[in-house]
């Protein structure tokens, strides 16, 4: 067990290092930060932003002599902002996961991994943890923006709600990255892996839309399988263990399929 853990750590460190050495990763992170910073400012402070709208509602209420409606501004902001951040992440994740195996296949380093005393699933787990850590690094500065913003809120914001929302974001990312890793293991072309993973993301999004607009058992089943629905639960501050189980199932499925695909890759050449 100790050896397996050591292997996972070795793979994890190498994977993480390769992201920090890759110009592409910095470009992706910069664009992600730029856009999320823009949305942060626009949603909080912009003319259509949460604060403006709340002020408008208050003023309207005073003019009409109605009692002021109580609006939890930090909560409203977080709900909208994390929704946007989730969509933004869906665009970024295929680019992060595309090289996980495709690059190894192209360089021939898969032959090193496959002939070392490491199991396929240990490699997959190490790689997934590596790319997920990089994604978490991308999310950290955004948490800092929020912490600064929320420090001005009165009454103070309970940290559990934003933390749960971000946990949801990370679980969503892990699910998509895990499936993206599997897609990456199917091809030697990183571009093809990115396109196919993006197609998968669009497919997940379509499932979500269908689930929202339909009723009946099919819609219910689809909404249960939709990663985005479960993400929204987390964002709203609802911790539902079934949501957690769905996320973990997607992650495990991705790892399992990756390990199988690498096994099949070695056998199919027979």
């Amino acid at each position, binding site marked *: 067990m100790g050896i397996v853990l050591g*292997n996972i750590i070795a793979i994890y460190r190498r994977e993480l*290092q390769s992201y920090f050495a890759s110009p592409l990763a910095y470009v992706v992170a910069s664009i992600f930060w730029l856009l999320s910073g823009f949305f942060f400012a626009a949603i909080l402070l912009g003319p259509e932003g949460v604060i403006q709208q709340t002020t408008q509602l208050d003023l309207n209420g005073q003019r009409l002599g109605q009692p002021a409606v109580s609006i939890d501004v930090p909560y409203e902001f977080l709900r909208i902002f994390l929704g946007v951040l989730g969509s933004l992440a869906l665009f970024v994740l295929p680019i992060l996961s595309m090289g996980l195996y495709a690059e190894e296949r192209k360089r021939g380093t898969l032959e090193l991994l496959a002939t070392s005393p490491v199991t396929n699933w240990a490699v997959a787990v190490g790689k997934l943890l590596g790319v997920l850590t990089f994604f978490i690094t991308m999310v950290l500065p955004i948490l800092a923006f929020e912490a600064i913003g929320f420090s001005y809120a009165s009454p103070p914001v309970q940290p559990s709600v934003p933390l749960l929302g971000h946990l949801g974001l990370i679980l969503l990312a892990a699910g998509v990255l895990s499936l993206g890793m599997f897609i990456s293991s199917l091809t030697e072309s990183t571009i093809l892996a990115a396109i196919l993973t993006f197609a998968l993301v669009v497919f997940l999004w379509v499932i979500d839309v269908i689930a929202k607009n339909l009723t009946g058992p099919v819609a219910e089943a689809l909404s249960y399988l939709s990663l985005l629905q479960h993400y929204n639960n987390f964002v709203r501050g609802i911790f539902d263990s079934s949501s957690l189980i769905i996320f973990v199932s997607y992650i495990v499925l991705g790892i399992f399929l990756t390990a199988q695909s690498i096994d099949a890759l070695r056998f199919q050449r*027979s």
Partner: protein
Amino acid sequence: MIEVEHLSKIYGSTSAIQDVTFSVEPGEILGFLGPNGAGKTTTMRILAGYLPATSGTARIAGFDVHEQSLAVRQRIGYLPETPPLYPEMTVEGFLYFVARLKGLPAGDRTRQINAAIERCHLQEKRRVLIRKLSKGFRQRVGIAQAIVHDPPAIILDEPTVGLDPRQIIEVRNLIKSLAGSHTIILSTHILPEASMTCNRVAIINRGEIIATNTPENLESGLEGSGYELEIDADASAAQQLQALPGVRQVESILAVSSQGSIPLKENRTCLRVTSEPGTELGRDIVSALVGMGVGVYEMRRTHATLEDVFLELTTEEKNWEQTGGGEEAVVEP
């Protein structure tokens, strides 16, 4: 140490190797010699556990490469055809990664990595990014990753491909220095490499092993060893030499230098005396010539090289099969 029995590998309808059987004793270097596309890489990959065989068994240190893959993978170092390197890592960082991957205990890592770096003469490159290394250094890093965990068996697929002559000599010396404590199997299509580095050579062509022996035996088992003479005599001397015991053939040849054939001086003859396998004619030829009162200007021993063995064996194969595709007869010097 390495036992391969009746190994076959079929890709779709074409068979890459058929019924390959050989074994490598502990501490030995076996050269796997064959033209491009003969099935060398396929055999190496099966041994390393990267590909499963269609039929037959291969065992390393008593473990089946397919059934007990993990146990085998712990005991081998493998250099694939293209060295598996991560360009964004430094040489040292990469070797640490491989050492962890191979499950080397933390306490031994630094020592073993230093030893591998030293053996492969990578000292001044240890903190250089692999991306910035030349082909020769990359190949050496590839060898270093194969030996970093000090495995009992080392599998090297074309270890000297793409190196300059000096680097080739260094890599050969490195491989020779590893023998004894390690069992090595290396593949090559370069003939002198096999004869210089290996204790034994297995010649593979079109997926089948056609000969396994020491380079010396392979060479001496071949016709064509003997002497070339330049003497001042006419054809009658040739008849007398032909009568000596152990002489297979005496033929008249033109004196040839690297510039082409040299015109012979008056009354001189060039002869090639070919011996029966395993006989030594030097003494007899000299005493016969002296007995005849013939002057000797040059006497040179000629060897059949592994190249001749190789050409003879692979050409024979070609004649049997009546193909004439020609690709298997390509031999790089």
